[in-house]
């Protein structure tokens, strides 16, 4: 009898251990393996870093040629000192993985369409569909080409190989106890790092910045509303403010011209209910460089301020790399070698997105449902069908056949977003092509002067960026660099006919004909995603969106600047002046001046708006009322552009305000849901009432009598897994279209100021996050309070090891295998 009880008890014990050692799906999410996860000896408790932990250590690493010193400062920024380049990149890979391994792997999995391996297919297959989208956009295909190019150059090849080796050295040193928190939470383990992952990461940045195209939306607009509407509502140039480079009449070169005629405008309606999400139109960036003539100490200064979707772990990882021939500091992208934005002892550089249209969609005609042949220049051409496999966690593998054509992969077809299953659309993207951006950063990291910067940029294809430059030699410069197709008028705005090769990119703008200049008379260069060049630049330029407000405010402040100190540039980076409100609110208020039967709340709103100084500061109530009004106005104005199963896109902010002011009787201002015929005035009145009602509803839900802007905006820095408990709420001013471009989810991701003094370059910086990716580390969110309060850390740019004596020392010794 007792043996039965023993067996029952034993089985129960073993079953309990098994249950607590496995993760279990529960309603769309997963419970971590509770025994493993909660064990204080190896579970998540071990990810809590001790208050008194020391960062100094001595480790043996195989693959090193010589000893390596990594000094770690109080911001957890590593300063790597090596005697040769191979060791330098191995150490960069090692230390980056030490602080960011989970993020590096997760982001490259996301780029490659492999998230469903980690978290399953998701609710309604959302995760699997995301993964399929990534493969169908050719992310891996593009990354493979990037890697091929990287390996053709000895320097970029060495860097990517050693960086990869360094990451793998770190991965090999890990036991379960040491795994980053998220692996324990989701119950999986890191795989070997590969060189392809480095390429994937760079292509993923290109995806973030290039996918703002509206080809499908504009094609639908054309079909539904006609060419006149397209021209009226979506002009190529808005003619607002200064272009990035104003060089009127001075473009002294013979531009490439194309003999062929522009392609015919399409006449189709593309029904897609769930088009892949585009780049956020509010993603933008600021950069500028000020000549010595405008600064107090006569040295040029540079400002870096890229705006991205803010996330934790942070997008950027600050680092210093020191070896013979190189001493550079700045930020890297975890998962790729080199410094991407930064400075050395002679030059500094910063980037903003160039916005230009570098993606096109081509409609494909297949011969039959096998899709093995498609029509091209009157011939049936064989397609290449690639079997993509998705090892979805917790279920059978999913197979997706992706058809590659002359243009690229067919993204949308009868198996993916098949709402319009008679049509197939292939995707052409500049990032599908071979290019070696790594070489640009390799060279920029070592550049001594303007000439070196120019040479380095010649290797840069994409994502196209506006590169601001300043040097201790006294130069400031700007160059819009990327590989740009020569476009015929309207080319790239609409979906193209994929049956004719003549509709493809025929030529590229030669590097030396890109938009650029050096030391302009006004004493500064700047860019904020606005239109790149004056109207005399001899190439057709198109993009979904050029910036209209930040750039004017920046140039206005920089023009007035003299005897500038670093603090002046910091103030400008954090400037909350809402130029859009200053230009539109007086007109808006006129339209509601005679509004009858005002409620108490509406009277309060009008008072707050009338006394507002146009600054979106933390406690400003006027800003909340204005933004709520605006947020009600846009969808109400462009209600015609909200149709089920048809992707459409609204006109820009700037153009909307312009039309409201200049053509108030435009038929578009009629609201379709009301029987009355509205004009701009009636529309603004309705939007005002809706905006005030939204604010009142907010006040009620928060039990608050006031509506301060930072509270109303309610911004946050989200963890990559979108887990609230790992995210951080932020109370901060600014908004999109403002220099301090912090909207609810996007904002300044690396604020850096460099002063290019001959006696020694100085730099200050901050970013919304921290150096460690570990939510159990104080370095996880260390910089956030500085970032929100416009404070900067002076960066410890070390000239030699002797300056590092007070810092923690991570000593790596070569070990024999």
């Amino acid at each position: 009898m007792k043996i039965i009880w023993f067996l029952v008890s034993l089985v129960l014990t073993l079953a309990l251990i098994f249950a607590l050692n496995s993760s279990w799906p529960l309603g769309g999410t997963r419970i971590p393996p509770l025994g493993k996860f909660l064990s204080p000896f190896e579970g998540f408790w071990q990810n809590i870093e001790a208050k008194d932990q020391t960062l100094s250590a001595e480790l043996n690493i195989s693959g090193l040629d010589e000893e390596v010193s990594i000094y770690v400062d109080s911001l957890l920024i590593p300063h790597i000192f090596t005697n040769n380049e191979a060791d330098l990149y191995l150490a960069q890979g090692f230390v980056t993985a030490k602080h960011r391994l989970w993020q590096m792997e997760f982001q490259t999995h996301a780029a490659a369409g492999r998230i469903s391996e980690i978290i399953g297919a998701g609710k309604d297959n959302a995760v699997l569909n995301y993964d399929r989208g990534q493969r169908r956009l050719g992310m891996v295909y593009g990354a493979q080409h990037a890697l091929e190019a990287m390996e053709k150059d000895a320097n970029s090849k060495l860097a990517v190989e050693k960086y990869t080796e360094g990451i793998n050295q770190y991965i090999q040193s890990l036991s379960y106890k040491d795994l980053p928190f998220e692996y324990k939470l989701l119950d999986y383990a890191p795989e070997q790092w590969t060189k392809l992952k480095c390429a994937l990461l760079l292509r993923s940045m290109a995806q973030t910045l290039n996918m703002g195209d509206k080809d499908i939306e504009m094609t639908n607009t054309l079909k539904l509303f006609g060419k006149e509407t397209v021209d009226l509502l979506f002009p190529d140039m808005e003619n607002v403010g200064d272009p990035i480079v104003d060089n009127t009449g001075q473009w002294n070169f013979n531009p490439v011209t194309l003999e062929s005629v522009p392609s015919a405008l399409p006449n189709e309606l593309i029904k897609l209910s769930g088009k892949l999400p585009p780049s956020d139109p509010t993603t933008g960036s600021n950069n500028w460089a000020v000549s010595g003539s405008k600064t107090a100490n006569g040295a040029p200064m540079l400002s870096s301020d890229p705006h991205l979707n803010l996330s934790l772990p942070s997008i950027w990882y600050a680092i210093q790399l020191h070896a013979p021939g190189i001493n550079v500091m700045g930020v890297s992208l975890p998962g790729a070698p080199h410094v991407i934005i930064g400075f050395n002892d002679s030059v500094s550089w910063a980037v903003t997105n160039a916005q230009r249209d570098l993606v096109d969609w081509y409609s494909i005609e297949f011969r039959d449902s096998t899709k093995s042949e498609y029509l091209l220049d009157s011939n049936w051409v064989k397609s290449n069908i690639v079997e993509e496999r998705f090892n979805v966690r917790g279920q059978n593998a999913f197979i997706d056949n992706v058809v590659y054509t002359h243009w690229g992969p067919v993204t949308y077809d009868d198996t993916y977003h098949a709402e319009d299953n008679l049509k197939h659309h292939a995707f052409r993207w500049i990032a599908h092509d071979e290019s070696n951006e790594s070489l640009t950063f390799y060279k920029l990291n070592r550049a001594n002067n303007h000439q070196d910067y120019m040479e380095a940029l010649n290797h840069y294809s994409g994502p196209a960026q506006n590169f601001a430059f300043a040097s201790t030699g006294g130069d400031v410069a700007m160059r819009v660099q990327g590989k740009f197709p020569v476009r015929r008028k309207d080319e790239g705005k609409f979906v193209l006919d994929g049956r004719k090769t003549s509709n493809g990119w025929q030529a590229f703008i030669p590097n030396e004909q890109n938009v650029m200049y050096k030391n302009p008379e006004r004493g500064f260069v700047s860019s904020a995603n606005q239109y790149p060049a004056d109207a005399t630049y001899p190439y057709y330029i198109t993009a979904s969106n050029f910036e209209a407000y930040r750039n004017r405010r920046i140039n206005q402040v920089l023009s007035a600047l003299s005897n500038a100190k670093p603090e002046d540039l910091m103030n400008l980076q954090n400037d909350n002046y809402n130029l859009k409100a200053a230009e539109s609110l007086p007109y808006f208020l006129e339209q509601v001046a005679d509004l009858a039967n005002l409620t108490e709340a509406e009277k309060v709103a009008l008072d707050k708006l009338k006394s507002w100084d146009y600054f979106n500061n933390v406690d400003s109530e006027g800003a909340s009322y204005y933004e709520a009004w605006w947020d009600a106005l846009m969808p109400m104005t462009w209600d015609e552009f909200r149709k089920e199963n048809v992707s459409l896109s609204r006109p820009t902010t700037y153009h909307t305000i312009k039309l409201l002011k200049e053509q108030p009787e435009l038929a578009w201002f009629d609201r379709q849901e009301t029987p009355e015929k509205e004009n701009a005035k009636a529309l603004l009145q309705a939007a005002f009432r809706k905006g005030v009602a939204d604010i009142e509803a907010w006040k009620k839900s928060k039990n608050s009598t006031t509506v301060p802007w930072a509270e109303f905006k309610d911004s946050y820095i989200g963890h990559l897994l979108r887990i609230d408990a790992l995210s951080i709420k932020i109370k901060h001013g600014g908004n999109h279209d403002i220099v301090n471009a912090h909207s609810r989810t996007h904002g300044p991701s690396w604020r850096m100021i460099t002063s290019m003094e001959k006696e020694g370059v100085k730099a200050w910086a901050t970013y919304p996050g921290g150096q460690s990716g570990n939510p159990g580390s104080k370095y996880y969110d260390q910089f956030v309070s500085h970032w929100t309060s416009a404070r900067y850390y002076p960066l410890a740019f070390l000239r030699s090891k002797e300056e590092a004596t007070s810092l923690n020392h991570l000593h790596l010794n070569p070990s024999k295998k």
Partner: protein
Amino acid sequence: MKFLMQFLFIVIGSFVIQLFLPWWSIAIVAFAAGYLLKSSQNFLAGFLGVALLWGAYAFWIDLGGAAPLADRVAGILSISKPLLFALTAVVGGFVGGFAALSGSILKQDKRKNLYY
């Protein structure tokens, strides 16, 4: 007295073994304690021994910790932080308790059924 011996054996044994083996090694220690140091309250000894060890160690780590990861995990699991400590203790405790119970039952049976 026997209970206290058994309990201490489990606390100390579990601590040492987990420095080398995965978390489930607590079951080996508790099982051995149930078998070798059988008391009248074997489940309780196993439960309390591991629960106390896990709970106290977790508490100690959190106390000296530089970041509120425990709060964050409590948030992920939608429970309060005290409950997270309790859950940690209870999860370890149940494994320890059942393992000790199993060991103690085996001991009694071994004398009667030598063929087993």
